[in-house]
């Protein structure tokens, strides 16, 4: 029999609070974390709203915040959420556990580019007639104005390395970046590493912020973001007929995954068991998902098969539910393909209606939401669901949380480029 993997710790830094408890309580109340962008002047951008992490202070979480002084908020949020998760699992400074058997697998996004220096250097060295940039001028300016430490910290391997170094996690160390599916994929592959025996414990999750000028620019150009700036709390409306794009969020979610016998032996608190993981590609287009949900449906099916369960065993689905026209329609189609008639019986909700889209970190935060739903027996709502869309006709738990005994939950994450990940968690039974 394969090794079983359970969740023994969780941590979260999100627009809805700086702990798992706050994150979940806010969702049950249907509170929105979305407001006008305060991190930079977005007044003349098509999109002026986002879900920001407010009042974050890394020194409240780690003793040596100076390690992250040059890091982007992606690494800083990760450090704080990791500290919570490891503490929750009693793994901080715990020398009774073999630290070489604890690994890290993150789906952590990039650091934030030095927008003002980069763009002004381009402007200064740009010739409007030839439309060329003088690269000798640009590079000499780059050496002068870019900050070496902050440039180094933008690199994609730094967040996972800092966690391993600071928290003494000397096992396998990975970071994947598969757009909006990244942290779900990280959790799935980390689960597989424990199953295979590459590690006994994995710290896994994601962290990301794209609430910066180039991030909003990129998504605005793709017309992926909602431009319903007023009121901000109404902008993210997954599955509603009048949805017009997603809202950027930021933050981090971290989980401690542990081999079951290892967790039992040290008396760790077990939140839930990860029983299924599916991973597929649409192989269709870089911009759109497959119109019939080919990859998404195959992914959900693969996760259920890996879990050894039937669709009717699923009590709750935490949808990818971005609030874009295409995603929500295709995700609905995919769920119906896999669940058949049972699709109308299983409640589905989107945390993004309140949290916005945490991009690489979204999957981890949403899986944490699933685990809390199993623990507490209350499913978070999809907020702003006001006008039904005939093409989205499932039970989306509209506008108010609902009590239900949830034993088994499915979490979907679908990324740009056609990357699909599904995870299944179940209440832990001895």
């Amino acid at each position, binding site marked *: 029999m394969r090794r079983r993997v359970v969740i023994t710790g969780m941590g979260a830094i999100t627009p809805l609070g700086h702990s798992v408890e706050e994150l979940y309580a806010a969702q049950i109340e249907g509170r929105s974390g979305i407001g006008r962008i305060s991190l930079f002047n977005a007044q003349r951008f098509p999109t002026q709203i986002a879900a920001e992490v407010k009042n974050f202070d890394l020194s409240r979480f780690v003793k040596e915040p100076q390690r992250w002084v040059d890091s982007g908020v992606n690494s800083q949020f990760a450090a704080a959420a990791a500290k919570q998760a490891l503490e929750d699992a009693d793994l901080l400074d715990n020398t009774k556990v073999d630290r070489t058997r604890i690994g890290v697998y993150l789906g952590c996004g990039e650091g934030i580019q030095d927008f003002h220096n980069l763009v002004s250097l381009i402007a200064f060295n740009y010739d409007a007639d030839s439309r060329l940039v003088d*690269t000798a001028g640009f590079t000499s300016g780059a050496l002068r104005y870019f900050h070496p430490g902050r440039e180094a910290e933008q690199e994609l391997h730094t967040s996972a390395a*800092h966690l*391993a170094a600071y928290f003494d996690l000397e096992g396998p*160390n990975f970071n994947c970046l*598969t757009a909006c599916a990244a942290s779900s994929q990280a959790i799935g*592959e980390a689960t597989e590493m424990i199953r295979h025996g590459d590690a006994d414990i994995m710290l896994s999750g994601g962290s990301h912020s794209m609430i910066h000028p180039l991030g909003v620019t990129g998504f605005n150009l793709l017309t992926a973001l909602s431009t319903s700036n007023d009121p901000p709390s109404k902008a993210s409306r997954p599955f509603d007929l009048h949805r017009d794009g997603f809202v950027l969020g930021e933050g981090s979610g971290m989980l401690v995954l542990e081999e079951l016998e290892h967790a039992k032996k040290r008396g760790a608190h077990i939140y839930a068991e990860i029983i299924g993981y599916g991973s597929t590609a649409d192989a269709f287009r870089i911009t759109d998902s497959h119109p019939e949900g080919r990859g998404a449906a195959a992914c959900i099916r693969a996760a259920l098969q890996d879990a050894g369960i039937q669709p009717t065993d699923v009590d709750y689905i935490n949808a990818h539910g971005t609030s874009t026209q295409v995603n929500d329609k295709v995700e609905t189609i995919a769920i119906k393909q896999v669940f058949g008639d049972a699709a109308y019986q299983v409640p589905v909700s989107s945390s993004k209606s309140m949290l916005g889209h945490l991009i690489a970190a979204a999957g981890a935060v949403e899986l944490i939401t699933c685990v809390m739903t199993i623990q507490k027996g209350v499913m978070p709502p999809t907020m702003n669901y006001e006008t039904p869309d005939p093409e989205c006709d499932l039970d989306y738990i509209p506008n108010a949380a609902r009590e239900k005994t949830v034993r088994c939950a499915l979490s979907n994450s679908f990324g740009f480029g056609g990357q699909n990940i599904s995870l299944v968690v179940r209440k832990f039974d001895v």
Partner: protein
Amino acid sequence: MADSRRVVLTGIGALTPLGLDANAFWDALVHCRSGVGPITAFDAKSLPVRIAGEVHGFDAKNYIDKKERKSLRVMARSIQLSVAAAQLALNDGNVDKTQLDPTRFGVEFGAGLIASELEELGEAARVSANCQPGSIDLEKWGAEGLPNITPLWMLKYLPNMLACHVSILHNAQGPSNTITESDVGSTLAIGEAYRILVRGQADFFLVGGGESRLNPLSFSRQCLFQPLSRRNDEPELASRPFDRDRDGMVISEGATVLVMETLEHAQKRGARIYAEVVGFGSAFDRQRSGAGIARAIRNALRDAGIEPEDVDHINAHGLSAVDVDAWEAKGINEVFGDRDPPVKVFAAKSLLGNLGAAAGTTELAASVLALHHGLVPATKNFENRDANCPLAVIAGDPVPATKPYVLKLNFTDMGQCAAIVVRRWE
């Protein structure tokens, strides 16, 4: 059962500073020809480092069907190199795509940050510049800058687009992942794809790494924080792993994609087999003491079920940086230090420079070909032994490969380590 599923390497697509396919790559390796030269990709005269390993003569159009060529416009150079290398790997593996089950076909890449081409932001920058340096008028940028940028701008630079474009072009609907872990990215990708094939979630994989930092933004950033060689007047002598007079690494570009599949799948389609993947291990070297490197190596050897004496040669990370090479030597010697005769060490970066996210697949390809041809290339520029790197570095001429196993090692500047073991196919 699952563990009896064996994984073999059946195709190599390599676009590197050593040439535009695996044959040119091997020819340069055995003749000890360096791929490092003066930077020609952009005007580097203001930089302290003006040498690199460039892929010369690359034109992505030569590797992609006419009807797909318009998609090249949304591919940064890292992506174009990767897509082309994937096509070369399929050609080299003699793969008939119509015979593959798309749902059992996976793709996994190591990738890095991809820098925007400066010109794409030129007009937007011009209309929103303030008079002060280092300050942009964000209101102008939002209102007048944005419409001057091409709509798909961001998608051209997402790290997961290497794998996504490959999956789209070849209808690969199985697992797809992108490991973004600096110099160890594609090594970890090989390891993960190996695990996925063994556990049965796919039968056929394209595993690659692709990276080009040969553009003004990436390269000047690297100059700020990487230990780079300043041997600008002697480019071919600049990358000298483990040599006493090394002074830093050389940045290179390229992409190498490997065809990996289950033995059963390869035999069914009558594929030529280069080598078998038999072990993978990874770890974190927290103190930069070599302990983590040693643990990754031991994990990989244990996974392969072999002992240190079974290893023909170690294909080292060999960065050519002063402290990093000494760190690596400590790690290797923790496992192999008491071997007599000592284990041979080959450092491909002496010829290639550092391909970053593409280093793992590219360097492993060198040893796969070494096992295949029975000949291990020599490390270029290894002239004087460094007391801090007590290793038996192969220098001068190639030597025969006499044992069946190769150990490939890579790690990052922050301590993320990975090791792969491959076995000669017999």
